[in-house]
């Protein structure tokens, strides 16, 4: 089957999968740090919107990271 995946969600989930080996709190911090250092503000805004809209399909670590970013 196929499904549509918005870019920011795909990229954020990729970051979470690659930092997911870290303890949860540190993983969230690292993900937040990475997105903060490398993502244009409009991308971050779009990510926040996904979270606000229910975080459908977003890795829970990304949701935790977004809390730190805001």
């Amino acid at each position, binding site marked *: 089957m196929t499904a549509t995946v918005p870019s920011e969600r795909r990229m954020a989930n990729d970051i979470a999968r690659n930092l997911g080996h870290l303890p949860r709190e540190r993983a969230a911090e690292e993900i937040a740090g990475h997105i903060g*250092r490398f993502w244009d503000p*409009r991308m971050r805004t779009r990510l926040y919107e996904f979270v606000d809209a229910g975080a459908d399909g977003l890795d829970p670590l990304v949701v935790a990271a977004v809390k730190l970013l805001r």
Partner: protein
Amino acid sequence: MSLLKEPDFGTPERPGPATVSVEVDGFPVTVPEGTSVMRAAAQAGVDIPKLCANDSLEAFGSCRLCVVEIDGRRGTPASCTTPCADGMKVSTQTPKVEKLRQGVMELYISDHPLDCLTCPANGDCELQDMAGVVGLRQVRYGYEGANHLEAEKDTSNPYFDFDPSKCIACSRCVRACGEVQGTFALTIEGRGFDSKVSPGAGESFMDSECVSCGACVQACPTSTLQERSVVELGMPTRSVVTTCAYCGVGCSFKAELRGDELVRMVPHKDGGANEGHSCVKGRFAFGYATHPDRVLKPMVRERITDPWREVEWDEAIGTVARRMRELQDRYGTSSVGAITSSRCTNEEVYVVQKMVRAAFGNNNVDTCARVCHSPTGYGLKQTFGESAGTQDFRSVAEADVIMVIGANPTDGHPVFASRMKRRLREGAKLIVVDPRRIDLVRSPHVEAQHHLQLRPSTNVAVVNAMAHVVVTEGLVDRPFVDARCEDFDDWAEFVARPENSPEAVEPITGVPAAELRAAARLYATAPNGAIYYGLGVTEHSQGSTMVMGMANLAMACGNIGRDGVGVNPLRGQNNVQGSCDMGSFPHELPGYRHVSDDAVRTVFENLWGGTLLAEPGLRIPNMFDAAIDGTFRGLFVHGEDIAQSDPNLKHVTAALEAMELVVVQDLFLNETAKFAHVFLPGASFLEKDGTFTNAERRINRVRAVMKPKTGKHEWQIVSEIATAMGYAMSYDHPRAIMDEIASVTPTFTGVSFDLLDKLGSVQWPCNEEAPEGTPIMHVDEFVRGKGKFVVTSYVPTNERSTRRFPLVLTTGRILSQYNVGAQTRRTGNVAWHPEDILELHPHDAEDRGIKDGDMVTLASRVGRTTLRAEISDRMPTGVVYTTFHHPVTGANVVTTENSDWATNCPEYKVTAVQVGLARPERHSDTEASDVTGNDLVTVVD
């Protein structure tokens, strides 16, 4: 400058601490032990006549022209093969040797055409020179006897002719092919009088194994092997030393001209990267610079469906400036941006990123390194503290074990490959980690001890398993790790876990555990182990992780900080390193300093004026997404063809179509220009002044061979656009731009054109601590202080083979072509690669009823194309391979949006595909699937 002739000392240098002192014709000279009499004589200022000797080649002793007399020794030994002994007294001009030389020359000339006045090599022929030097006045033997004067010419190569009637069988070409290039395509066929140079077994040059590097042509002392351009245009009269604009090796060349016409490119012996060697692209494929397809006038159009309209520079520049500002007024400051080019000079890249930051007022600048080596920058910065390779190219000569991972140097970086092969012939061991059986795995006099033929996308699992062996078998260099590194224990605990053992990962990687263990032990126990890698590492969803994995492995084995070791990216384009150094990334100012660093921004704000943004801008793929979203409306594309080179072309073209202003600066109307509203004609490297920085951080001078055919320099055009936008920017020469770079970049503070002209080249960091540069990095400590071990979990790619797309496509490039082919397709190099080819394993071909040469469709979930199949058992089953040099194929129609988690470098090396026989009406057809907009389709199992 007149024609530059480097001195030829006859035999290679023999560096070493021990010396011997000799006297040559009464002149005393002290040389390293092992130096030949010929070389010692040359160093003493005495040129001994020679024909078969050349200081790029080992002495051969066949021409007998270099005979000398030595006090206390019998006979007349050849000076090229006779090593100096302390106290030796040599006489190079005695009646006896003079008579011998005349006799030898008489024999040579008796079987050589006497057409000197009309010979293309007239004035550049060593045989002609030597006839004069030895005082030959007559040839007693006549031409009636057997000779080679009617021997047939081989004109099969597009760039040089082979005329055996002029051959003196000195073997210089044969030895150059073996010793310098390492291909061994040439041989001397026959014996005695029948001896003749032959490519392969009686084949033509074109049909042989010859890779057309030009080493044989350069070595030939006569006109036997002669550039066709010299035959057609005549002997050049002046030289300009400059740097090749193809791959990241960055070879130095003498551009040899006749008046203002470029006749040939000859590799420069003093070039730090290449030391006198070349490949088919740099040596011969420069004709694109004067190709009739070049656009020389600026052009504009309102809509991309309108015809182009030629305009003057003022109108073109004014249009760009006005429309960019209009977009910013309407959509916001961050609605526009630029892409810099790794084919352009450091100075040009610097002014483009400055235009974006200072004139556009945002950080929306990225570079084509995004799609190749951005994971290198990330991974090496995290672990070592600097976004660059650790070694100079010379270092490979000290390596005992060489591990090549995801790189194909004989095709992608051929001149460095020749250095590497030389070291391998000397006995260094080789490990190749690659899904394909690349040429290095087994070629003449080179054979890999281990070929780890892993499944695409499993690099990280392999490197973790190698580290597992190192840690669990006690092979860690503890003194190095304890003194120089941090975070080792966590990492060691991680790699030592059972799930990272070679046996555990074998089902994932496909690499036999015993083979992997043996390879790991070989690398870890080598006195000097060196890693060289390419895009087969970076262009993966875990590209950055793999770079860190290799850095971990090198640190654990103590293979950092001296000659013969290191972690070395082989950069794709000529100035990938430089374009990254110059602040092309949207999160970094020049010198890899983050835009959020207040102190760094202050440095630039003080120099440039105004306020710089502290937030990162958009990366290239993010620009495409934002364009489709409607928040990014204008793009300046400097010397890149994103509509051919970037992945998932359907998405790229949708983004380009969505923008209101696309400005393309290039030599040709490339694929991206189809979506452009303004076309600014660019200059070729032959028209540029500036610098390139190669894969070993070597800053090389680029010198203009001819005036810009467009009437303007690219740095000038960019400065004028910025100025027209209200931000005054002007320079009188690229040297002023480099001076500005040096003033704000700590690793460049010592760099200037004057220094480069004095030293030839310099490797950064070049500053107060290292006034002549830094060949080897991290010698006493890492740039970040302690080398950092980073845990590198293996995370499988999202791209999965399915029943619908059961094969994995990996892409790459071939020796004769370069990237999107815009340059090489417009040269004689098309003779070797007229179209992109799909390589597939015989079993995969048989399953699909495909025969060698059939046209096949290549389809992925995002698109489909058609190309010709080549059945090859160097592919593993289940994996197919193609290049992306030809727009008609558009290989990137099928590659996907998957990218490296840390940098968004596309995952070009892993695309699930299906291959099938093409229906005749589908030939040369490319199409993308029905995917539009920002929301892309991905396969979910």
